[in-house]
């Protein structure tokens, strides 16, 4: 197989496909680990695929009084989640041409656009729980934003750019880069951000059916059929995208393809899935070990994430870090 060299555009498409295809698998695997940890047998690993497929066969119900936004939002969000993988190192360690299209902030904006459109659609429906969910999601999204910003600053201070590829390269360059305090702080802060953004304990119980505690999940309550399928699929993709950033930029940017050869590029896919499974296990353990915070205590969680990110920047200010 060696010798076959892929064009950059082909790798870029492959990145998107990886996310598209394997995202539900990752969610299913993590759910499986979680139930095993709780002593249950749990759903099949492939269950998310079945769910999505089933939903695509159902009809779409649109609430009265809602406009085109309601139907457009899932599509917009889905496209957003397909755009971000173009900007981040999913498979290769070297930047692909479209990687220069947007930095970490750009990726963040695209993700935020997805969240915004879903929230907008939820607000449109007039359903009380959906509106509650979207207002909460926007509030906590705004609260976690400063942390993301400061993590970005850290990356910018370390590498002189804020492209995710360069941060990953800096971490790979030497062990002392990987254990330098600023990097550890920023990585941990981003870990907390991912925890919050994927709707995990201690911020949210993602498997709960109790509407009062819901944040992200409540937004999709009014959707049905293919639109809901897109939203569910999209949310697994969002999780995977965040995992990619966390793993391939901050925690373990190893095992990526260093060249455009077909072999290494294809190998990078299982390598990433293995790493993601490891991180997913950590999330599952946290899910079991902690309890959900009261809604008003979530600000404390956000404050902790911000503290770490801000410290990372402060530490870097003094050169060392």
């Amino acid at each position, binding site marked *: 197989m060696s010798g076959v060299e892929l064009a950059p555009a082909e790798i870029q498409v492959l990145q998107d496909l990886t996310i598209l295809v394997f995202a539900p698998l990752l969610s299913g695997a993590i759910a499986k680990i979680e139930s095993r940890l709780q002593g249950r047998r749990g759903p099949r690993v492939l269950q998310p695929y079945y769910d999505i497929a089933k939903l695509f066969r159902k009809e779409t119900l649109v609430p009265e009084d809602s406009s085109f936004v309601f139907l457009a939002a899932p599509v917009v969000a889905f496209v957003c989640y397909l755009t971000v993988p173009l900007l981040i190192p999913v498979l290769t360690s070297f930047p692909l041409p479209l990687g220069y299209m947007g930095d970490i902030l750009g990726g963040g904006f695209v993700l935020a656009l997805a969240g915004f459109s879903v929230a907008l659609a939820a607000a449109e429906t007039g359903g009380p729980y959906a509106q509650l969910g979207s207002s909460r999601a926007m509030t906590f999204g705004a609260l976690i934003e400063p942390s993301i910003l400061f993590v970005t600053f850290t990356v910018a201070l370390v590498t002189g750019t804020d492209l995710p590829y360069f941060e990953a390269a800096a971490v790979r360059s030497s062990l002392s880069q990987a254990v330098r305090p600023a990097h550890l702080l920023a990585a941990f802060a981003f870990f907390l951000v991912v925890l919050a953004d994927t709707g995990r304990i201690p911020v949210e119980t993602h498997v709960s059916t109790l509407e009062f505690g819901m944040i992200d999940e409540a937004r999709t309550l009014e959707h049905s059929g293919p639109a809901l399928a897109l939203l569910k699929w999209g949310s697994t993709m969002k999780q995977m995208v965040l995992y990619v950033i966390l793993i391939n930029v901050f925690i373990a940017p190893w095992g990526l393809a260093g060249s455009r050869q077909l072999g290494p590029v294809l190998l990078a896919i299982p390598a990433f899935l293995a790493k993601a499974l490891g991180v997913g296990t950590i999330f599952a353990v946290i899910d079991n070990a902690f309890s959900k915070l009261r809604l008003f205590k979530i600000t*404390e969680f956000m*404050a902790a994430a911000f*503290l770490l990110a801000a*410290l990372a920047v402060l530490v870097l200010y003094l050169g060392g870090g």
Partner: protein
Amino acid sequence: MESLLAAVTAPSAVTDAAETVAILVLLSEFAMLRSALSRSQVNLYAFQSLAVAALAFIVAAERHVNDLFVLGSLSLLLKVVIVPAILSRVLREAPDDVAGSHRLGVASMVMSAIVLSGFGIFVIGTMPIHSKLLPVLALAIAAAVILVAFLLVIVRSDVVSQAIGFFSLENGVSLAGYVLAAGLPLIAEVAFLFDLLVAVVVFGVLMRVHHGRSASLSTRALEKLRG
């Protein structure tokens, strides 16, 4: 891309370790701000002292400063073992819950503490201070620890947090001492430690007296004298 990477100067591993430990000292100070149990307050102090002592050992081993081995062991014994033991003894009969003693919400408390730490770090950053033994960041963090300790004493109205605030301030000063005055004669350092021990005893006596009189750890009863 190569040129970009070349601009990234990676600090040495020892510096990294020292800085990480210093940051742990600061993070435990932040945890004290939030901690809701007097027992965990004492444990956090013990952990912080452990980190400070570890820093002494790192410097001692790396730069072959033998005095620091002695000092590190002494402060380990005193601040990780004896002082927490005294405090736990004093608090044995006291209620464990000091959660209600915040004068500020946790989030605003953490924000103020971040601002204070930032101030401390920036001020030290402007100072022409360099140390052969430790990165100057450790000093900046010591400044941050001291400022946050002040905040801790101000925003928490229970005797345990206030006393721990003072002790952790002393930890911050010790940390600063490793950067500024690693060569300070051992006898002086020992005198400082002895002073701390005496202060701990006095704090303990007063805490016990206060608890004996008011059956609580809150200092809200201690706000009568004015004018």
